[in-house]
């Protein structure tokens, strides 16, 4: 059976952003998001500056605008939920909408969008295993990074088993309708859980066969050059400065 050859969030490319050390990109994305979150919602100009920053990075990463916008759709459910705020909060009002609610909607929308934009930049220029590697470099406990690594590794395997199971169900005359699909899928997921549990035992055997003794081995870390560090931190550093100015002027 053929396998998935796509890692949906990742966008293949050889840009300078792609080549940066993963742990630096993680720090940069985290720093940028913190700057966005602490910025007062009234500082419109600051959010404009943040947008300019992430757009500049996406241009440097050679990402098509459509690629980013399509992936930004992931925050739509949050925006829909936040859209109720102008109706729920109390007076004073503007054309029947709560002014405080409108500010809250703006606050959620702009910060969620910019945060998601930064996450998309990280995920589209760093393959999932490298993100895990970056977290290892940042000294996240190896038990956690090992679990993340296994998840990244086996997501496609389990997804492939689920797809094969659904094909097998359809091949034997199962005609899925929405509600029926949910029931069959639930049974399938139960079965997949048992299979995955058994696979876990086999993987563990394979690990101990190659000397695993309860601790994942320490792998070589990626060394970042000074230039790479400076380039990685330019945007988040600027963002933090903007945030501090915005806080000071508020």
């Amino acid at each position, binding site marked *: 059976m053929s396998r998935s050859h796509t890692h949906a969030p990742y966008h293949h490319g050889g840009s300078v952003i792609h080549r940066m050390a993963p742990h630096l990109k993680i720090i940069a994305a985290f720093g940028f998001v913190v700057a966005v979150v602490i910025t007062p919602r009234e500082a419109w100009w600051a959010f404009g500056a943040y947008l300019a920053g992430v757009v500049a990075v996406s241009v440097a990463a050679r990402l098509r605008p459509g690629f980013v916008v399509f992936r930004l759709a992931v925050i739509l459910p949050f925006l829909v939920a936040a859209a109720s705020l102008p109706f729920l909060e109390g007076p004073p009002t503007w054309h029947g909408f709560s002014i405080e609610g409108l500010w809250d909607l703006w606050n959620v929308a702009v910060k969620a969008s910019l945060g998601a934009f930064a996450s998309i930049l990280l995920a589209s220029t760093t393959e999932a*295993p490298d993100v895990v*590697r970056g977290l290892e470099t940042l000294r996240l406990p190896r038990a956690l990074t090992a679990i993340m690594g296994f998840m990244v590794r086996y997501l496609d395997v389990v997804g492939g088993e689920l797809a094969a199971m659904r094909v097998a169900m359809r091949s034997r005359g199962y005609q899925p309708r929405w509600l029926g699909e949910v029931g069959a899928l639930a049974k399938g997921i139960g079965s997949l859980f048992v299979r995955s549990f058994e696979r876990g035992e*086999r993987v563990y*055997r394979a*690990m101990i066969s*190659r*000397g*695993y003794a309860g601790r994942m*081995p320490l792998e*070589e870390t990626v060394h970042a050059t000074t230039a790479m560090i400076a380039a990685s931190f330019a945007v988040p550093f600027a963002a933090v400065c903007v945030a501090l100015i915005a806080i000071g002027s508020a």
Partner: protein
Amino acid sequence: MSEPTIAVTGVGFAYPDGTVALRDVDLHIHPGERVALLGPNGAGKTSLVLHLNGITLPQTGSVQVSGIPVTAETVGEIRRRVGLVFQDPDDQLFMPTVRRDVAFGPLNLGLDHEAVAGRVAAALAAVEITELADRPPNHLSLGQRRRAAIAGVLAMEPEIMVLDEPTSNLDPATRRELAALLLRLHVTLLVVTHDLPFALEVCERAVIIDHGAIVADGPTRRLLADGVLMAAHRLELPYGMALSGE
């Protein structure tokens, strides 16, 4: 004769539900030998294999690897010497990239990063997948994943490599390439397989196990040509294939 790489003597094993998996098994494999372990489903092949590197310890009898008895205290050393290649490469390739997976074993041996890199490069070159080093295993074909799994074991520089059903689900061309690869490797081999032509091609000696006991041990061609023996243990050559014992 040289000291056997594997010396299984009088090994017996029963699962907790009482199912007897191995009965008084004796098996000696010497350095440089390529041995096929044949038998029907449920014969005890996997149970025996799991005894060879201490994943399962014998309830009776003993297993020695190059003279070292397999015990709870020696399993670390034993697992360095006995490399197991599991049937499903997805069980074996658990790291995010091929290079990191092949490095897993040598890192566990406590080697420094330079030595690990050398072993990884040599193992990948031996199975001819150097160009796949930085690919995630799920982006590889089954044949490539099988090679990567073998590289992961070769990087441990084992004294014997045990392969469990190495040809399962492989297409004929990939199967032929795997046979050629195994014949090129200078390592003692134990190949557990139902694929009798593959056993004939790769292994000069075969051992048949059935109901947990070794029932035949000899040149692969002679055993496969013995129709009565084969039929008694539910082993069959593919349709149209006939062998003389010579």
